[in-house]
């Protein structure tokens, strides 16, 4: 009987230790979480201040430049296609235009 009681106490301690360990783990996680959030806030604040000074926005400007260059390339491609189409005027249209010009130039 004594032995069972002894084991019971030890098991109870084991459970109490586990509870403590669990609380410690949760507390550590909470601490890490608080630190993460606090760090994120600090970084955000720092970035905001730097941005207000026009500092540290190289990534943003570089990103915007890249985006704009891609957009510009698409725009130029569009115009290139239109310009190519203009160069391929059919001979029938050329002939009609030429007739109009000669009709206008030569006296009637």
């Amino acid at each position, binding site marked *: 009987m004594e032995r069972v009681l002894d084991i019971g106490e030890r098991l109870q301690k084991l459970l109490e230790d586990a509870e403590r360990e669990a609380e410690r783990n949760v507390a550590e996680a909470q601490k890490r979480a608080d630190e*993460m959030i606090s760090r994120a806030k600090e970084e955000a604040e720092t970035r905001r201040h730097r941005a207000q000074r026009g500092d540290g926005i190289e990534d*943003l400007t570089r990103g915007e430049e890249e985006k704009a260059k891609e957009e510009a390339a698409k725009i130029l491609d569009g115009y290139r296609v239109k310009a190519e189409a203009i160069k391929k005027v059919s001979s029938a249209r050329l002939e009609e235009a030429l007739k109009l010009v000669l009709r206008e130039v030569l*006296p009637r």
Partner: protein
Amino acid sequence: MKAASIDLEARLIERTVDQRNEVIARAEERARRILQVAEAECERIRAESDEQILNIVGSELRAIRDRIVGKAEIEGRKMLMLARERALSDVFEEAEKSLKEIAEWRDERVNYGEVLTKMLVEAISAMGGDEFIVSANERDLSYLKKQIGEIKDRMKEFDNVSILLDEKPIEAIGGVIVRNRDGTKTYHNTLEGRLLKARSRIEAEVARILGVI
């Protein structure tokens, strides 16, 4: 030790270990969720910060975009404009070649003598008066000399018109430059002059025919 007691002990241990594992697992889950929520919060803070920074530097970023995209728009429009210009110039250059052929009497479909006569009559009618000095290129001058009588006949409606041909030839594809006697009025009725005027008048129409508008 009795077997029943050992069994009880074993079950007690087993149950306690299970409880312990459960406590630890629950705590791990809570910790994991806390970190997950924190990570999401950090993400939100970063996104909010990005948004604020974008607002702060928005005008600068817009300027970057406008500069690059605007330049491309200008280049593109210029490219298009040059292509249109080229297409139009091709037509007018081709027209000039045709006019040269006509003026050199190489185009059998056109009676250039009639064309030249009409240009002369048109100039004289437009100017008014009775004495005119007519300049033309060598070839046209030679034609006009031969046909001057006939041309004057066609101008009977104008009273006492005197036409003097300037012996000094001009540089022109064809056509005439007519001056009045005292040189106060000049009427340019050359083919290149007419082509130039026609271009400014009908360029839009030509562009429409070519389909380049």
